[in-house]
């Protein structure tokens, strides 16, 4: 329970894979609809889920990360059947055909439902991904202590 007596869900999103992000946002949005207080803590590859479609990086290595792993949530590849971009195209098409929202629509809905989207400050520093590269509505960066406090008080903890 959180301080308001609501049930709560605390989730680490480590993955930047299309399929895992889809699962993460569906669970988060479902939980928010069920009246839970939801915290999503995005770290390492998961940071992509918060990004606009921009190139990042200041040093040589950071720019390389930006180049290899640039773009926003719509650039994420499925963990299987990636096929150099074909997989993403195929899954997007399949999801659309079946009336499932796109990842960026799911993220918009999460923000609308009051899901707390937090980025890991340390990953942001290492990957050279600044707050300005995130979409509006993402909360200020936090550390693991913040997440652990949320997780400790949460009824459900997930790692994706």
């Amino acid at each position, binding site marked *: 329970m959180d301080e308001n007596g609501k049930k709560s869900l605390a989730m680490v999103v480590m993955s930047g894979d299309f399929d895992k992000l889809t699962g993460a946002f569906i669970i988060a949005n*479902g939980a928010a*609809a*069920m009246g839970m207080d939801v915290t999503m803590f995005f770290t390492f590859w998961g940071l992509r889920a918060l990004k606009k479609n921009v190139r990042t990086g200041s040093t040589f290595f950071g720019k390389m990360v930006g180049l290899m792993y640039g773009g926003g949530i719509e650039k994420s590849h499925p963990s299987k059947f990636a096929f150099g971009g074909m997989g993403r195209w195929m899954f997007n098409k399949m999801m659309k055909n079946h009336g499932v929202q796109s990842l960026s629509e799911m993220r918009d809905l999460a923000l609308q439902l009051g899901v707390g989207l937090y980025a890991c400050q340390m990953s942001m520093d290492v990957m050279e991904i600044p707050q300005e590269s995130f979409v509006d509505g993402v909360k200020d960066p936090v550390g693991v202590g913040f997440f652990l406090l949320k997780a400790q008080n949460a009824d459900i903890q997930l790692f994706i």
Partner: protein
Amino acid sequence: MSDETKIDLELDLKGLLCPLPMVKVSQNINNVPVGGVIRAVATDPGAMADIPAWAQSTGNEVLSADKEGSEFVFLVKRVK
């Protein structure tokens, strides 16, 4: 039962997949007064499990959940 119940809001959830039927019901529950009833029609079979679970979690009540052909019809009462 469904013949006598007064419907305050009709929701068309046809074509929506998980978790949207549940999300839409939750977004609309405050648009009916306490004691009011939403009639929601979905085509996602998963909603048959999800909407009652949503109701249990949020303290609302599913008066009925019926399969009518390829559609699933819910009467959801706002309890609080």
